[in-house]
């Protein structure tokens, strides 16, 4: 158990630290790569939460898809922009930064406060699930469970999201494509 715990803390630390680095870094490319680290460590956390399928999806879609897309966008927007942006970052005046920081910290305090107030570890339904043994165990066959759910309970969202993706595809393609006479 302690190994899992240690792993968890490690992952958690990496997640937060890399996220903070992303927030603090003045170098754009570096921050993007640090975000990559964040996402990966998050996938690790998912695994620790016994959601291996989600973790895989995270790596495939987020790391493989989204991040590549972002990098691609960087490339498309040209090298000089990158330089420009870096410079701008340097010139950043910190008043708005400070207030943003204040806001973020306040939110954090509120969230943490709430978590402690709720006594999150002793939620009724969680306890009931544990006692009825319907919580996920490391050996639960979750992938097939997901498969069946996708075809039954979550059939509607599953089908709907296909239309959504199609639409997003059409739209994004429309926006990005160059018209010959344009």
């Amino acid at each position, binding site marked *: 158990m302690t190994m899992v715990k240690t792993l968890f803390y490690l992952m958690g630390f990496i997640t937060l630290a890399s996220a903070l680095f992303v927030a603090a870094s003045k170098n754009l490319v570096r921050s993007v790569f640090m975000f990559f680290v964040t996402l990966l460590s998050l996938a690790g956390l998912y695994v620790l939460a016994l959601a291996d399928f989600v973790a895989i999806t995270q790596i495939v879609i987020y790391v493989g898809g989204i991040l590549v897309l972002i990098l691609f966008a960087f490339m498309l927007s040209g090298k000089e922009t990158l330089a420009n942006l870096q410079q701008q970052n340097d010139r950043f005046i910190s008043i708005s930064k400070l207030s943003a920081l204040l806001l973020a910290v306040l939110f954090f305090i*509120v969230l943490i406060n709430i978590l402690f107030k709720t006594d999150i570890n002793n939620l009724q339904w969680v306890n009931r699930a544990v006692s009825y043994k319907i919580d996920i165990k490391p050996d639960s066959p979750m992938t097939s469970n997901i498969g069946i759910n996708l075809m039954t309970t979550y059939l509607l969202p599953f089908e709907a999201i296909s239309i959504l993706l199609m639409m997003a595809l059409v739209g994004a393609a429309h926006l990005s494509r160059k018209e010959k006479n344009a």
Partner: protein
Amino acid sequence: MENFLQSIDTLTIRFALAAVLLPLLAFVVNICLPGKKNKAAGWISTLAILISAILSVFVFLKVWNQHQVHQQQLWFTIGETKLYAGVLLNNLSVLMLLLVSLIALPVHIYSTAYMKHDENGKRYFAYLSFFCFSMLALVVIDSLILFYIFWELVGFSSYLLIGFWYTRSKAVLANKKAFIMNRIGDIGLLAAIAILFTVYHTFDIDQLFGTNALVRSTVFELPGGWQYVAFGGIALAVAAKSAQFPLHTWLPDAMEGPTSVSALIHAATMVAAGVFLLGRVYPVFTELELNILAIIGAFTAFMAATIALTQNDLKRILAYSTISQLGFMVMAMGIGAYSSSLFHLATHAFFKCLLFLVAGIVIHEMQHVKDEYKLDIDPQNILYMGGLRKKMPLTFIAALVGGLALIGFVFTSGYLSKDGILIQSFEWAERKPLLFQLIPISAIIASFMTAFYVTRLIVKVFFGEFKLAEINPHIKLHVSDGGWQYKLPLVFLSICCLFPVFSLNPVLYEHAWLLNGFPKITGLDRVNIYHTIIPVGVNILSLFIIYWAYAVYIMEKALPFPEGGWLFRLSYREWYIDKIYSKIIVGPVLALGNLARWFDINIIDGFIHLLERIGIGFSKIADWIDRNIIDGFLHLVASIVLGIGNFARSFQGGRVQYYLFSMLAIILAIFLFKTLF
């Protein structure tokens, strides 16, 4: 028999109605006549008033000292109150009816000549007929609300006639002043009527003030303060209409109208309406209120007389004299000499009308002179006149008769009525505290002063030489008495100024038939000695004053005085006294007159102007409030709206991160708010 009486009454009523409505008909016909200056207009009006006068005589004979006739019919219903309109003929109303129509007739005849050359002659006669209608209706009507209506309509027609020459700005100012001052009185009257209605639920004059007067009954009582508000209202109305202190200043100004109008309206009839009102509502007054009336009347009489002493404008002198005489009447009402007051009203109407007509002729002729030689003079100023008696003998005689009547000289009607008032005022003052003695004393002084200014007037105008000719020798005076339209009224009115018309006994006023028509004054001790001393004393002294005045104004020029040699000698012997008089009395009296006039112009009118200015000041303030505070408040609201709008907009700076920040901050704030409260 009953039926017969009934039908006679109906006939009487019909006659009275016809007498009232004929002038209205004339008015309508005149309005519809084509052209501005239609000769027919004058004759239509005159014919109408002639018939009215004849009918009035008939009505008078039917009603005078017999039972009163009262008929009415439903006018309209408001709420549960039924308002009746009708005719109430009793001694008071038929006397007034007769008086008004009899005075109006000569004035109409006179006017046909007087206004012959005016280009708006038609309008003049229309107005005049309208006035006659209103005035006649006023005297016969039986309901207070209708009384008010005609009360204001006479004021309105007076407004129209004063401003008849509306291109003269003085005339327009004068008629505005007249109307507004009358309006003040009207409001008082309306308030009084409303109060009476509130308490007694009726407007009917007969019910209210007739034989079984509601106002005397003990069933209803006016609440304490209300009684005095009602009285105040009536007093205000009387003061405004009858030109009593302090609302009298419009009357001298009203002389801007045609002189014939002044004769009819501002001397004989309309101004008497105030006294008539007092007569109508007499039962409503309490002892205290009557005293106040007496004081007002006496003071007005005295004050106006002093002012008249120093005026040079012919018509103004007469106007002040009218105010003074009206003061006598009001005072008479106040001391309870109800009948004497009305008597004086009647006699005064004739002689004052006569005097105004005389003045009209004189002014008319002076105007001719002025036009002929293109002089820059005021044709009404008596200082430019003189010596007219030779050129216009009839006018002179008429003036003499009228003047003596005004003075109250024996053998004239004025003697009968005025001495009656004086005697009764002394009798009345007998039982009063010392201070009240001032009232008869001031009345008698006013009476003496009357003698003085009348003499001055007549002497200045008719005696001596023509002053303009003295200044400017080549001016020739071609004047005359004028045509029959002038002469006939003068003769008629002059006759009416003599004693036989009112009483066969020229000395004792009590024997006048008119007095018998009204309740006798009660409760006064008859102090016989006054009945001898006062008339004799007054007359002798008046005579003396007449002579003195004559001497002051004519003898200085060492003119022969053939008619009264013994008087001349007397005067000559008393020369020093005369001088002392002129030092001790004339001077101060003149000064007093001037002072009073000054007081009039500066204090009373000044006060009125002050009020006006305050009014305008208030109106300016109100205007300012409107523009700045009320609209300012609106603008404030508008700017608040815009302010909130701007605040809401201030987030919309176009920067999306700022939007996000605001959103998150607000959400956090909402949450924290919920947490904390």
